[in-house]
């Protein structure tokens, strides 16, 4: 930490550029990686490149990060939702290279419905650190990050995937870089029949059906130096797919024809200028970013459960954003100022028998101004920030969000960090305006607000490091869809929800050939008038993993991860048993750039696992891959 802060002060590297190009030496899966905007924040990067060929999705790598819980609805390609520090999946934002792609509707960002094409890392902001991601990041945020080749040259890579549940996949990457520019294009396509056998709570074996998916994604990233002290970067993503939308496992037949088709187009560009203004003792860097997103989704169920009326739900969401900011450095003091503006439009129709029965048309404009200052010494970093969010359009309101952070590094091997921030999430469009007979939004909802705080030490040696953090989120006006009568479920504010717990992590590189990593998180998340853990949030979860490279052409990996039982209702009555998954991988590499991989998940073939009520998870899954890489 101290080294990093000193680096900023010494060379005035643009902060945003640093954030975009993390130092490889500190980019391990468990080690917190500072974001220059919140140097005291609990932020970690996890590498996800290559997971496609292990038969995994965007979310699976997140088990390496303490404080992050995943809720899988089914097998590969089906929805996966993340929770950060006891929050729910709506209470976090997801961005792509800094541009928010999560949208204000739905049950949260579906990490399972996204290819990995072009995504190299996920940066995880936990707790107060997520304040830099603005409104929506109540308990945390994820940033999907692409990268380009650093050294001049050209490389190509292609791989195929075959595996359980009739899964087939293809991935292709091309990288080019010269002294001033770099460009990368990546494409992935995958399909899976998806059906698998499972054991229900009564001990009966069934087959999960309507569980397949087809998905394709293409992402291109380009970077170019714009003179000696500036650079630009552009990222574009097209991601589309269709999947079966299996219902509860006890009622599969009723939803055997239900499907979801979705498409997402994202484009964002950013420029950074170093020393835009240099007055000797004061230097100012600037940056600008624009982005646009369009997303469409169609849910079709030829027959509904109540009666026999076909249901078609369609939604279109588009957003346009602009960011302009500056960072200044003056001795031990640095300051940042950033303006963000986003305009979003959303339309959703529910049709029965071709007739629109419910329609949402909403617009929202968000203007945010964020200012922060950091004072550093050799030992201390003190930061204070203030963010103002102003919403207009279908809803008018504002929020003022203060934050403070401190990092203390009395020795190179020891540091302590602590943060406090006020965070905020405005109600999503469906929470406000959904208007079905039995499920309704509530236009009078209050926005969610939380005080998030954390504190924790970190120690490190030359080949190991370990840390821990206590966190606490005190949330008010938490929005949940709850039954308000025997016939109506309505979006409702709940006052007083607290999540608190302890994160711990350690990794140890025993030798160049052998490394170990482990994390454990204790989370208590509850309504203040109840002792019961909120649904789907495990109290205990963790992971132990090892990677072994006994010889140059062989990589072996193994990990054990899982969580304790979870509640399936708000009253602590129905419970899903805890489960543990043993996963393993093997990769054979040749000097010719050819590599063969085998990856297995849930080796013990536990077919009774669930993360949600009547949402069974698959048993043993095995994937094989062949990859050809050319890297001159």
């Amino acid at each position, binding site marked *: 930490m101290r080294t990093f802060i000193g680096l900023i002060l010494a060379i005035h590297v643009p902060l945003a550029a640093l954030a975009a190009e993390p130092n490889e030496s500190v980019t391990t899966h468990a080690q917190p990686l500072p974001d220059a905007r919140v140097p005291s924040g609990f932020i970690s990067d996890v590498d996800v490149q290559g997971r496609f060929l292990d038969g995994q999705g965007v979310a699976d790598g997140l088990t390496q990060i303490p404080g992050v819980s995943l809720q899988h609805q089914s097998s590969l390609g089906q929805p996966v939702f993340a929770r950060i520090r006891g929050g729910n999946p709506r209470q976090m934002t997801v961005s792509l290279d800094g541009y928010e792609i999560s949208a204000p509707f739905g049950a949260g960002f579906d990490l399972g419905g996204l290819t990995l094409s072009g995504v190299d890392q996920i940066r995880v902001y936990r707790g107060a650190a997520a304040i830099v991601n603005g409104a929506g990041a109540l308990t945390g945020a994820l940033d999907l990050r692409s990268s380009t080749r650093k050294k001049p040259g050209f490389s190509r890579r292609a791989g195929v995937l075959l595996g359980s549940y009739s899964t087939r996949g293809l991935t292709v990457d091309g990288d080019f870089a010269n002294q001033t520019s770099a460009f990368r294009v990546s494409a992935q396509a995958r399909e899976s029949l998806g059906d698998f056998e499972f054991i229900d*709570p*009564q001990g*009966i074996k*069934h087959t999960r059906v309507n569980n397949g998916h087809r998905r394709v994604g293409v992402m291109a990233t380009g970077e170019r130096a714009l003179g000696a002290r500036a650079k630009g970067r552009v990222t574009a993503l097209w991601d589309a797919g269709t999947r079966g939308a299996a219902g*509860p*496992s*006890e*009622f*599969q*037949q*009723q939803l055997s024809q239900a499907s979801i088709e979705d498409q997402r187009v994202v484009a964002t560009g950013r420029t950074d200028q170093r020393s835009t203004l240099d007055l000797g003792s004061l230097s100012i860097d600037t940056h600008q970013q624009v982005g646009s997103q369009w997303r469409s989704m169609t849910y079709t169920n030829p027959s*509904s*459960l*109540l*009666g*026999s*009326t076909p249901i078609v739900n369609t939604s279109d969401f588009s957003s346009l954003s602009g960011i302009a900011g500056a960072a200044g450095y003056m001795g031990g003091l640095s300051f940042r100022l950033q303006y963000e503006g986003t305009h979003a439009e959303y339309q959703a129709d529910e049709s*029965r*028998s071709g*007739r629109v*029965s419910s329609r949402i048309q909403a617009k929202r404009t968000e203007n945010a101004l964020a200012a922060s200052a950091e004072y550093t010494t050799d030992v201390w970093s003190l930061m204070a920030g203030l963010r103002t969010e102003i919403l207009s359009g279908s809803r008018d309101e504002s929020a003022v969000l203060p934050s403070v952070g401190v990092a203390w590094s009395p020795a190179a091997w020891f540091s302590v960090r602590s943060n406090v921030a006020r965070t905020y999430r405005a109600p999503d469009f469906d929470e406000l305006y959904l208007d079905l*007979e*039995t*499920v309704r939004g509530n236009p009078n909802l209050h926005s969610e607000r939380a005080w998030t705080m954390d504190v924790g030490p970190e120690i490190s040696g030359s080949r190991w490091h370990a840390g821990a953090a206590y966190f606490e989120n005190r949330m008010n006006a938490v929005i949940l869809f*709850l*039954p*308000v*009568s*025997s*016939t*109506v*479920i309505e979006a409702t504010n709940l006052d007083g929800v607290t999540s608190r717990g302890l994160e711990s992590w350690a990794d140890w590189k025993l030798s160049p050939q052998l490394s170990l990593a482990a994390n454990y998180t204790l989370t208590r998340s509850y*309504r203040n*008038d*109840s002792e019961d853990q909120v*649904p789907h949030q495990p109290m205990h979860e963790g992971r132990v993993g090892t990677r072994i490279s006994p010889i140059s052409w062989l990589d072996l990996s193994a990990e054990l991860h899982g969580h304790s039982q979870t509640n*399936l*209702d*708000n*009253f602590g*009555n*129905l419970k899903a048993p805890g489960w543990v998954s043993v996963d393993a991988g093997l990769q054979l590499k040749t000097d010719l750039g050819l590599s063969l991989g085998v990856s297995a998940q849930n080796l013990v073939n536990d077919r009774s696992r669930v993360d949600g*009520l*009547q949402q069974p998870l698959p048993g043993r899954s095995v994937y094989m891959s062949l990859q050809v890489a050319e890297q001159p």
Partner: protein
Amino acid sequence: MRSIALISVILSSVVWGCSADVPGIPSGPEGPAACLDGPLAAGWSGPEKVAVTGPAVNVLHEFEGDILMVVSQDNTLIRYSPMTGRTSLFADLGNDRGPYDLAFDDEFIFVTNYLSSSVSVLDRNGGLIREIENPNFDGPSGVAVSDRALYVSNVDYLGLEEGYGDGHITVIDRSDFSILGEISTAAKNPQYLTMHDGDLFVSDTGAFGFDDLGAGATSDGAIERWTEEEDLLQPTRAVAVLPVETPSRSASPGRPAFVNGKAYVASASAPEVYVLDLGSFEWVRGVENPIVLYATDRDALHHIVTDGQVVYVSAFNEDTISRIDPSCDEMLGEPIAAGFDELLEGAHSMVAVKTTDGTDLFVALSLANSLVRISFQ
């Protein structure tokens, strides 16, 4: 209106100020009588959570001294023993059934499966004997059995947009389970069937619609009494209509409870109980002068049982139990909390079990997935 159980399938989910006789369990003192010659309002203790049920219990029945629970969202029957306090899986009906109600005789247990339009026939140990499937079934809900016939009510629900078709009762030969035919009901949505003194009582709840405050009745409801004749398809029928001239909260009769020669019927849309005189088969407390349980603008859903002395009414949206003294049809004491939580737990179906000390009332909290007991001394 379909039950909350099925709503749950789609989607997918008080403070006591009195001193407690048993630590941790609320209790209430004996209260004044409601009627001149009626009993005092019994002292009570509870609710006490006695079991976790399974998702979305739709109905409870007393069975061999135990309680059988129809768990709609799990396609199971769960058995709870008040003696041992143990809960066990009684029957797994198979996926995609959506069980709604059950009835039993000395030999079999019959379960209506709403979603699969079938009737599961089980032995009294829960073993599946057969499953009756027939095109005549159209949303089978209520079920009752006599010596000669098995009756299945079909609500003919078409969807939220289309509403309800004409309901009918499928009449099945009890001896060989052959379908004898069908009889149309006097009003729509025949949700429940109940045998009483050898007669079949049909609860025609009527059609439902939705407004800003929930569900309301959009067509007449009725209670029918069928007396079997030689030809099972030509019973002698008496019909008591609960009229609905315009969409209304009132009417929407549910399953009756019988005491003192009267049938007590709680509304499935209003906080009201209606009283039907079984002799004249006319309403003595109808939609124009109901027993009002509490005040609300919202919709409401109730179930009703009796221990032969007191009528107990559960209020789903209030998580409370109300008592009525049938000797004068007045409310007895204050409503008693049936739940524990600030969130709605959904007090739903009940079973009243006479004990040496009084009555144990078992209440399914359908949203909280639990069974609670309230003991009346």
